[in-house]
C-alpha cells in the first residue's frame, strides 16, 4: 500500500484505519483516542492529565508509529536542561567562535513531541516552550528557528495552580483527563494490556503525516470558505457552554476546526456536513475544553441538555422515572419507563447507523439505566 498519496478521501480513510486500530489495541480509551486525533488533525497541542500508568505515553507512541512520525520524548523535571529539549551547543563551531546548536533529534527535528510532567519544567524551558507551542519557532540567541513539530503532547498528573503556569496551560486547549479503569474491568484490562505489549512490537504504519497535512489543509480551506455559515451553527452552542465553563478567545476561535475534524474521524465527508452534524460534533468536542476534573460533570450535564431532541426526551423521561421511584409514585414511574423504552426503540429504527454510532455510549447508558428502572418498578 502506498501511503504517500495525499488524495483527501484516501487520507481520511487511512486516518479512520488509525482510529480503529488505536481503539482496537487500547482498552476503553475512545475518548483519549478521539482527542489525540482531533489535536493532530487540527495541529493543536494536546494535554493528557491523569495518574501514572494510564497509558498516556503509550498512546502518543502508538500514534507516532501508526503515522510513521518521528517523535521526541522527554520527562521534564526542574533540573532538565534546555539542551535536552532543543539540542546541545555545537562545540566544534563554538571553538570557531560561533554559537550554534545541533538540532538533530531534538524537539526541533521531530513531528511529534511528548513532554512528560510538563509543569515540572524550569522557567528557562517554559519560556522556550511557549514559543514552540504557540508559534512553532524557538528564539535561540539572535536566531528564530522554525520548529518541525506538528503537535506537542503534554502529560501531567495535575492541573497547575501556579499563576505562572496558566499561560502554558492555555497553550494546550485540548485536554483529556485519564483515569484508572473500574475494578470490575481488571480482567479485560489485563488481557488487553498483554495484547497491547505484543501489538506495539509489531505495529506498522497505516497512514502518514502527509495524510494529516492533507486533511488539515482541506478542513481549513472548508472553514475559510464557509466560516460564516458554520459559526452561525456552532457559536450559540459555544456561547452557552462558556456560561458554564470558561473558554479562552483563542480556543473559541478554533472550535469549528475541532468540530470538523471530529466529523472526519467519525467517517463524515466535508460534502455531507449539515447543521445537525455540526451541532453534534461541537457538543462532543467541548468535552476537551475543560480546565479541571471537576468540570467533567459540568460538561456531562451540558452535553445532556444539548442531546438531539429525541434522545433528550428519553433522558428526561428516565430522570423523571428515577425521581418518581424515590417518591414511591410507582405507577407514574412505570408509565415513564414504558414511554422511554418505546421512544428509544423508535429512535433506533429511525436514526442512521452513523448517528447511532455517534451517540453509542449515551444510548447504551440510557438502555442500561432503563433496564435497572424496569426491574425496580416491576419488583414493586
Amino acid at each position, binding site marked *: 500500500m502506498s501511503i504517500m498519496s495525499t488524495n483527501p478521501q484516501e487520507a481520511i480513510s487511512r486516518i479512520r484505519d488509525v482510529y480503529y486500530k488505536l481503539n482496537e489495541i487500547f482498552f476503553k480509551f475512545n475518548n483519549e483516542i478521539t482527542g489525540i486525533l482531533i489535536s493532530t488533525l487540527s495541529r493543536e497541542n494536546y494535554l493528557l492529565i491523569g495518574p501514572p500508568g494510564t497509558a498516556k505515553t503509550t498512546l502518543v507512541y502508538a500514534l507516532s508509529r501508526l503515522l510513521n512520525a518521528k517523535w521526541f520524548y522527554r520527562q521534564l523535571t526542574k533540573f532538565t536542561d534546555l539542551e535536552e529539549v532543543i539540542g546541545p551547543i555545537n562545540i566544534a563551531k563554538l571553538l570557531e567562535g560561533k554559537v550554534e546548536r545541533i538540532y538533530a533529534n531534538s524537539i526541533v527535528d521531530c513531528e511529534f513531541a511528548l513532554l512528560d510532567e510538563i509543569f515540572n519544567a524550569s522557567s528557562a524551558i517554559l519560556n522556550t516552550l511557549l514559543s514552540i507551542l504557540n508559534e512553532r519557532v524557538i528564539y535561540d540567541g539572535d536566531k528564530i528557528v522554525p520548529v518541525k513539530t506538528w503537535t506537542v503532547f503534554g502529560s501531567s498528573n495535575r492541573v497547575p495552580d501556579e499563576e505562572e503556569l496558566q499561560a502554558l496551560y492555555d497553550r494546550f486547549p485540548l485536554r483529556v483527563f485519564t483515569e484508572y479503569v473500574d475494578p470490575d474491568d481488571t480482567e479485560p484490562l489485563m488481557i488487553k494490556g498483554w495484547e497491547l505489549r505484543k501489538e506495539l512490537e509489531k505495529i506498522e504504519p497505516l497512514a502518514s503525516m502527509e495524510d494529516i497535512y492533507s486533511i488539515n489543509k482541506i478542513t481549513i480551506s472548508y472553514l475559510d470558505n464557509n466560516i460564516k455559515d458554520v459559526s452561525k451553527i456552532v457559536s450559540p452552542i459555544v456561547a452557552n457552554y462558556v456560561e458554564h465553563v470558561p473558554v479562552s478567545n483563542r480556543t473559541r476561535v478554533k472550535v469549528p476546526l475541532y468540530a470538523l475534524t471530529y466529523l472526519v474521524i467519525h467517517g463524515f465527508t466535508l460534502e455531507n456536513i449539515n447543521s445537525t452534524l455540526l451541532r453534534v460534533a461541537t457538543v462532543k468536542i467541548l468535552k476537551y475544553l475543560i480546565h479541571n476534573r471537576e468540570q467533567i460533570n459540568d460538561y456531562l450535564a451540558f452535553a445532556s441538555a444539548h442531546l438531539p431532541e429525541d434522545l433528550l426526551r428519553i433522558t428526561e423521561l428516565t430522570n423523571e422515572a*428515577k425521581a418518581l421511584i*424515590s417518591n414511591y409514585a410507582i405507577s407514574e414511574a412505570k408509565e415513564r419507563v414504558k414511554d422511554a423504552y418505546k421512544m428509544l426503540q423508535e429512535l433506533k429504527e429511525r436514526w442512521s447507523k452513523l448517528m447511532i454510532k455517534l451517540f453509542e455510549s449515551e444510548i447504551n447508558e440510557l438502555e442500561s439505566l432503563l433496564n435497572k428502572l424496569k426491574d425496580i418498578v416491576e419488583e414493586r
Partner: protein
Amino acid sequence: MPGVLANVDYGDLLTIFRAREVIIEARKRFVTKIDKLDPEILADSFYIHYRTPILKNPSSLESIKEKLWYMIVSTYINSPEYREVSKVTKLNSKLSRIMATKVIRVYINMLTKVERNEILKDALESNIPKPRSDVSSNEKDSQGPGSSSSPLEFKLLEQEVRTQLSINIGNLKGIDEMVSRVKSLLGASVGHEVAELLLNAEEDSERVKLMNMLRSLIKLVSSIKREYEIFEEASEGKGVPEGVKKMRSIDEFRDTTPSEQALIKYSKALFAYKLGTSNLTVRERRLDTKPKLYLLIDKSGSMFYTVSNRVPHEVGSLSKIVWATSIALVLALKGGKIVVRYFDRQAHELIKDKRTIVKTLLTLTPLGGTSITTAVRTAIQDAKENPKLRTYRLILITDGEDDYVNPETLIEAKKTYRDFKAILVGNDNQVIEKYISTLKIRNLDIKEAKEVLKTI
C-alpha cells in the same frame, strides 16, 4: 430539601445544570437575590414549565421558605395563566427558563413580604399548604394535615401570592393559540421565536401590541397564501444565463457563445464540423422557478400607521409595516429566495430567513425618518459585494415620505438589479414615480397585496 416536585431528581447532573441555567437567565434579567436561592427551588421553577408537575406530599414541609414555595407553585400551576403558558413551554428549555425567572421573582418578592409581615409569617407557620385536587393523581392521595384550616390571615397570604403572580406573570391569554397558528403557518422555528418574544414582554401592554401585530400578520399572510399562487416564472421560459455547455438541441442555437458566432463569419467549415460533432458551445440557461427578490421595507414611524389613521398599533387595524412584511413572508413561504432590509434613515441588517423577518418586525421601534436614497445605495453596495444578488429583483416598499430622493441612485439600482420596482403605500412620491416602475396602494387589503405579488 425545599424541592416540591415528585418527578424531579434533584441530584441529577442535568437538573443541577437546569438550575444553573435559571440563575444565568435571572442574572440577565436583573433578578435580585437569585444567588441565595436553593438549587431545588430553581430546578422546580424550570421543571414546572418543562414537565407536567407532580407535587410532593406537603406534610413533609418544614421551613417557612419551603411552605411558601409550595404555596406559590401550587397556586401558580392551578392558575389560568399557567394552563395557557405550560402548553407553550412544555419540553422547551428556553421558554421554560424565561418563565422560571418570572416565578422566581414572585417567590423573592413574597419572601421579602413574609419576612417583613408577621401576619403573613404566622399564616404560613400555622398552616400547611393545601394541595389542589386538580394538580395530579399522585398528589390526590397526599393531602397534608391541617390543610382544611383556612383562617383570614391565610386567605390574605393567598391573595398576596395571586397578586404577585398576576404582576409578574401577566396576562397570557391567547398565547398558546397564537403560537400554534404561527407554527402551523410559518413553521416551528418562527413559532418558538414568537413565543419567546411574547413571554419576554415585561408588560401586558407590550404583549397586547405584539399580539395585535401578529394577528394582523397571520390573517393577511394566510389569506393571501390560500388564495393566490405566485409567480409562474417557469412559464416565462427565459431563464438566467449561467455558464456555458455543449449544445444539445437546435432550440439552444440562439444561445451560441460569441466565439462560436465568430466562426460562422470566419470559418464556416469549422463551425459546420463542430455543429456536426455536437461540439458547439452555448450559454447555459437556468430556469428561475422561484422568485428572487430583494425587498427594501421602510420602517420609519409613519409606516406603523394604517393608511387612513395616524394611530400606531391600533387594535384590530393593519399597519403599513405589517402589510409590507406579510408580502415578504408570503414570498418566502412560496420558497422564493428573499432578502429583506428594513430601513429608516439608515438601512438595517440584511435578513435572509422568515424567522428573522418576523422577529425583526416584532422588535422594530417605530422611529426614525426616511432616507430612501441611503437604503437603495446600500442595496447597490450589497450587489457589488455579492454579485449573485444582481439576478434578484429589487422591490422598494415605502409610504414615500421622504423629502429628497436622489434620481441617480434609483437609475444606478435599476442597472444593477434585474429589475427595480416601487410599491408606494398610501402616498405619492414624484421622483420615485418618475424614475422607476411604481405601483400605488391605497388600501391595505388582500386584493391589493395580490396585485402587488402579481406585479413584482
